[in-house]
């Protein structure tokens, strides 16, 4: 069983190699003429006004929190989905209750305006 996972390890290392290799080639083949202006951060021709680690909109954070909730939900639904035709009505009702609770939460978020971007 575990030998099925060996190719995955090989693939991950191969993926890393495909990331490191080209960058190494580029580093070796390309010129290297550092320059103060060239190496400063890009800001449409101006010198940077202030630090780039700036404040950002709270909504991005909210979306991330909501994502955790719903992605967990997806993770819960997957095992049920595999066997749901065998579980019959019991499985259907159990999952209905579970999804209903989450939908209630979702409606609450919606009404509270957590999903508004305007």
């Amino acid at each position, binding site marked *: 069983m575990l030998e*099925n*996972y*060996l*190719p*995955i390890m*090989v*693939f*991950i290392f*191969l*993926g*890393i190699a*495909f*990331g490191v290799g*080209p*960058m190494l*080639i*580029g*580093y070796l*083949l*390309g*010129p290297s*003429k550092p320059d103060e202006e*060239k*190496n*400063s*951060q*890009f*800001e449409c021709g101006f010198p*940077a006004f202030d630090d*780039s*680690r*700036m404040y*950002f*909109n709270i909504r*991005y954070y909210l*979306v*991330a929190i*909501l*994502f955790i909730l*719903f*992605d967990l939900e*997806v993770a819960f*639904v*997957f095992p049920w*989905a*595999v*066997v*749901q*035709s065998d579980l*019959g009505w019991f499985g*259907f009702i159990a*999952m*209905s209750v579970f*999804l209903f609770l989450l*939908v209630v939460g*979702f409606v609450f978020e*919606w009404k509270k305006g957590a*999903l508004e*971007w*305007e």
Partner: protein
Amino acid sequence: MGLWQSFVEVVHELIPWFDGSIATILIILIKAMALVMPLMLVVAYFTYAERKVIGYMQLRIGPNRVGPKGWLQPIADALKLMTKEIIFPTKANIYLFLLAPILAIAPAIAVWAVIPFDEGIYVTNLDISLLYVLAIGSIGVYGIILAGWASNSKYPLLGALRSASLLVSYEIVIGFALVTVVMIAGSVNLNVIVEAQKGSILHWYWVPLFPMMIVFFISALVETNRAPFDVVEGESEIVGGTHVEYSGMTFAVFFLAEYANMILMAVLAVVMFFGGWHSPFEGIPYMESAFSWVPGIIWLLAKTSFFMFLYLWVRATFPRFRYDQIMRLSWKVFLPFTIVWIFVVALMTQLHIGPWF
């Protein structure tokens, strides 16, 4: 697979020490290279196809100078990128700055380990291959966030934030859309899912799950930052998003990862909704025997090519969405819709409605 077995036996006879764990790993490595090398070639020529197709859609010719009809254009591009300077911004966090492209491309390649190309042609056959695809696929978002943060520049940071929220929003939608497929197929093994679609073109899951197929395809466009949802790059607003500070091969690695992901999404759409390696003429009396000589992998690649073309077609057709519109589409349209559709599919399975369940 018979050919492969005999090849392995010949190698075993020729090299006595070629045995045990080293042999296993070498064989896997050969298989992996046989998959990844063509993949890279496809990525290169997909960029050429993109420029050519969009060119003709806009009544231009597209690249036609390098080589006959521009056929050598991708190779010229690659060579040029190789000889360009890699700029290390002074303010950037160099280690994370260089880690980001690797984190972007490693999952984009690792995912391909479980994709079934034909009956019995795969690198590995996991029982949880779909979960693996979703899990590894979502690591790619770290690459983009790290790229934006480590650059220590404003536009990359904005691009990274946009990208992170977009990717996570549509990942949920993709998850729910694929749940419906799993419900019908009764497995998360991609091989079993394809096998369950055997029969005819009407047994493929795009018929019973047509709305989910549409949702999946649109979400795939967002996940791969494609037009009309490419606000992450948004060159008219944030001049290129996360890639602003990257140059030369560091940028090329991001580019490879993005296109490898696009092709992956196309393959996934085919495997989940369009019958994988099954011929579209199955079950049709005379056509089936007339086309039975075509190997399954050809069908898979043909269907995948169609979806890849669809990416280009969409890009040439639609104007870019506004960011809040995309977010609304995900949370207020697709998410409720997919949840409702899960109920519908569950009900139909329990009541045994329709010819497919």
